[in-house]
């Protein structure tokens, strides 16, 4: 064994030891304060993967035997007038395709509250608004809100927007740009129908990983309001401004810019209808690194759901947006996406029938190019004797003026499932058959995919066993290029044995699959298979 591997193992054991001590402290330390509850869950699984054939490198499955253990601990309780809750998640694996680290902390959070003051430590997810803050931080937040006295709600937050905990200690294998975030929110219910809030969120990036990583220093000022003039009608508005300093890459000159975004939304929910209207305008220089927005966009969205009666419902919608708001691009692109769907239950008086037909149009034009895609789908579900059926028919017409894409695509599939009780067994056979055809008018070629599969689910309720097996074939036939035939099979068995009943929902499971890919060019052929056995316990 090489020094590097030994060091890795020692690191893994050390991390396990620290975790065990932490668990011990939490398990036995916290309940000292009160008669509280604590839950453990642990899933241990071992996978054996195999791949073979000349084209085996096309498989995403790593060859060999791998272990994965996911541990979760969460608890809650009371200390004096404060309630507390905490949760901890730990993942350990030697499968580098699963995680670059052998051992990692997946979540760590503690929360203390007396219903007026709330302190959150660790994984902190305060959702201020769409534009200002809608991402989680590793840090802390404090919230003050006395619902009984109808006080203003005030939230302060500080943290680092890392995707993983090991980014905190700068683990080389999972390096991340450092994005410090701090901010506050003030929200007040001025009247029972009117609430307004203001947020300020600042972020500061440092420690780029790649020389071309952009570093952004951003301050976001945000104002939002909600007004309910009458029951069932809600009006929302949000406006935000940003001040941004951006360094686009190492050695590159930085730039400073400001942008803004506004959004209005009206939602009417009453009787058989639900209507929503939305208008949004996001300037080209609007930048949010902790929220969500698409810059340089003006958008209008409408949706109407109408329940005609218990059995008929109509849904229609329109989405339109454009860019080039400040005429600084060579051309403007407009996108139109209207759609309508009609769903009917108990068609032809059949109790279990349900049909839905949808039509969606997807159009974009700008810069001398325009696309018009028509998407139609029909779905029908029904029960025929002992069989439940589900059938889909769909077609898409692609049309692009610049002859980039022009063709028709058809999908067609149906499945039949059934359920039978035979003594202590419940059997659930299923059959699926479907296909896909693409007529490409530009290359004057037709490609087809066929798939069929058979499945059988078998449950033994008194032994708490559920299982399923499925196998089938998928064939891709191309006019131009390699054909592909794929044989596949998968199996899953879940058992909740009596000897694990003391562990709440203890479960043993076995999952396996095999895929065999057969190309026209034989050097691309390969087979991959995997079998996973595991134990899941919850206390």
């Amino acid at each position: 064994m090489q020094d590097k591997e030994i060091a890795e193992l020692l690191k893994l054991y050390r991390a396990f030891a620290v975790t065990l001590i932490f668990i011990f402290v939490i398990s036995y330390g916290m309940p000292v304060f009160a008669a509280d509850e604590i839950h453990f869950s642990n899933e241990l699984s071992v996978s054996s993967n195999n791949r073979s054939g000349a084209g085996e490198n096309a498989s995403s499955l790593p060859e060999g035997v791998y272990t994965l253990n996911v541990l979760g601990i969460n608890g809650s309780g009371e200390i004096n007038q404060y309630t507390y809750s905490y949760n901890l998640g730990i993942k350990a694996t030697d499968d580098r395709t699963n995680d670059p680290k052998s051992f990692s902390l997946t979540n760590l959070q503690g929360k203390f509250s007396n219903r007026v003051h709330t302190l959150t430590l660790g994984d902190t997810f305060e959702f201020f608004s769409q534009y200002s803050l809608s991402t989680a931080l590793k840090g802390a937040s404090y919230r003050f809100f006395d619902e009984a006295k109808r006080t203003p709600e005030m939230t302060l937050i500080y943290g680092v927007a890392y995707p993983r905990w090991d980014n905190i200690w700068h683990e080389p294998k999972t390096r991340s740009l450092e994005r410090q975030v701090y901010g506050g929110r003030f929200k007040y219910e001025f009247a029972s129908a009117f609430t307004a809030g203001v947020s300020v969120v600042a972020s500061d990036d440092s420690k780029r990983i790649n020389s071309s990583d952009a570093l952004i220093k951003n301050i976001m000022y945000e104002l939002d309001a909600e007004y309910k003039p009458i029951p069932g009608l809600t009006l929302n508005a949000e406006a935000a401004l940003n001040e941004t300093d951006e360094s686009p890459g190492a050695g590159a000159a930085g730039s400073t810019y400001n942008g803004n975004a506004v959004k209005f939304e009206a939602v009417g929910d009453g009787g058989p209808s639900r209507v929503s209207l939305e208008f949004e305008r996001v300037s080209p220089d609007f930048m949010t690194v902790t929220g969500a927005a698409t810059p340089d966009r003006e958008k209008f969205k409408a949706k109407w759901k109408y329940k005609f009666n218990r059995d008929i419902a109509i849904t229609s919608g329109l989405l339109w947006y454009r860019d080039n708001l400040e005429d600084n691009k060579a051309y403007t692109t407009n996108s139109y996406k209207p759609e309508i769907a009609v769903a009917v239950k108990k068609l032809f008086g059949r109790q279990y029938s349900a049909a839905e037909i949808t039509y969606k149009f997807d159009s974009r034009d700008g810069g001398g190019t325009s696309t018009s895609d028509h998407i139609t789908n029909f779905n029908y579900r029904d029960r025929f004797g002992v069989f439940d059926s589900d059938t889909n028919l769909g077609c898409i017409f692609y049309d692009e003026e610049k002859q980039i894409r022009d063709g028709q695509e058809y999908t067609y599939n149906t499945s039949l499932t059934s359920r039978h009780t035979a003594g202590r067994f419940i059997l659930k056979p299923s059959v699926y058959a479907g296909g896909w055809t693409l007529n490409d008018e530009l290359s004057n070629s037709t490609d087809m995919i066929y798939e069929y599969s058979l499945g059988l689910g078998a449950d033994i309720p008194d032994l708490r066993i559920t299982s399923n097996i499925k196998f089938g074939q998928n064939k891709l036939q191309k006019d131009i290029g390699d054909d592909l035939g794929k044989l596949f099979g998968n199996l899953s068995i879940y058992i909740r044995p009596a000897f694990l009943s003391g562990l709440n929902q203890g479960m043993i499971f076995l999952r396996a699959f095999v895929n065999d890919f057969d190309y026209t060019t034989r050097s691309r052929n390969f087979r991959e298979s995997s079998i996973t056995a595991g134990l899941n316990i919850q206390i």
Partner: protein
Amino acid sequence: MKNIRIHLLAAIFLVMLFSVQAHAKWWIFGSSNEEVSIGFMYINNISYDESGPKVLLYKDALQDGMVVINGKASVRKGKIGGVRVSVNNREKWEDAKFSDNGAFEFRFSPENEKVYILFVEIMDTAGKTNDVEATRKEVTISGQNSTANIRETLDRMIEAYQNEDPNRFMSYVSEDFAGDSSNLDRAVRKDFSAFDNISIRYSLNNIASGAKGRVFASLNYNRSVTSARDSKSYTDRGMTEFVFQSGGTKVYSMKNPLIFGLSDAANVATGTVTGATNQKVLVVNSKGDSSLVTFQEAVKGNWGEEAGSSEAGSFILNSCSPGPGCLIQQGFIFEDNKVVSDWTGDINLEFALMFLHAGVSKLDLGVKDIASVKSVPGSGYTPGSFKIDTSIGHCYAFKLASGKYAVFEIVSWTDLGGSNSTASFKYKYQPDGSGNF
């Protein structure tokens, strides 16, 4: 024309908003035939109708640990006389708060791992009730944290995506989806046209629960697909992030790199993960062709699109201090591939300074080979001159007065003495107006 469309849409929107004053129930296009009915009802902000007969709620995702049922009832004649709720299969009924306009609310503090059978009864003053049986709902409270819920939602989404079932996939997407659910719907349908044999495995890196049932999730994924266009297998892996609503049952937002909706990544993703390495990720262009590109190229977008071919070449500019024998300070017009000497160039050299023509702005891309510049940003450009003697090896992107883009690399600059200089450049110019080269 575009302004007319914008104004028309804005006018429709405003008219609909202000019509609230004119007719308070403008959004109701029909009414129920029942004597007593429920207009809408929510259980912890999840639509009662759309949540199905069974609901699983996670204790740690409950606001203040409470289950909240609220809605609005209406009666054909008279007034609402009472609203009551049973949480134990009609063994016991408890009164809910209600107001004259039919709005009602009921709260209870549930216990972990317990199943509640709910019924809601609305009664008018004449004693008529709603269809109570239709309000039956089985609510299970799980003591597990949100991790289990997120895993279940992701498993179901991946299963629907692998089975290429767009309707089932979209049932896990919030109507408030930040990238617009219509965009995601069309993007996954195009994914299904582009891919076959989709296989996605994932492993959670981080979970964080927030207020009102929102949950943040970061995950590693491994993906393999067969391209329906070229029948090749593509595999990639990376790290991505999601925000879920409704206790983790509906996706609110997704970041680049995407695992769903790759066919329209520019509109579906709202944000980019900070921890991504520059490994290759799978992308799909508007034709449906798949390819693997570096993560940074993927985020910039428009890779592999059918951009018009760009023009490229090199040029030399000389600058002499005005005086006998030399009156030139040369410039370059990208569109015409032409060196000029009358200060009409898009860029104009004066010794070590490069001056920009009115309407032209620049962006320093740092030290790089111009061959590696496949696209340039759409924003961040500034006007004004810049020094080139200290920027040899740098690439600069230019947004020209015509709105088109050009990029050059400063290959050399030489001080010839007497305030005379010469400089050589490589350049690319994109006449189709896009930032792709």
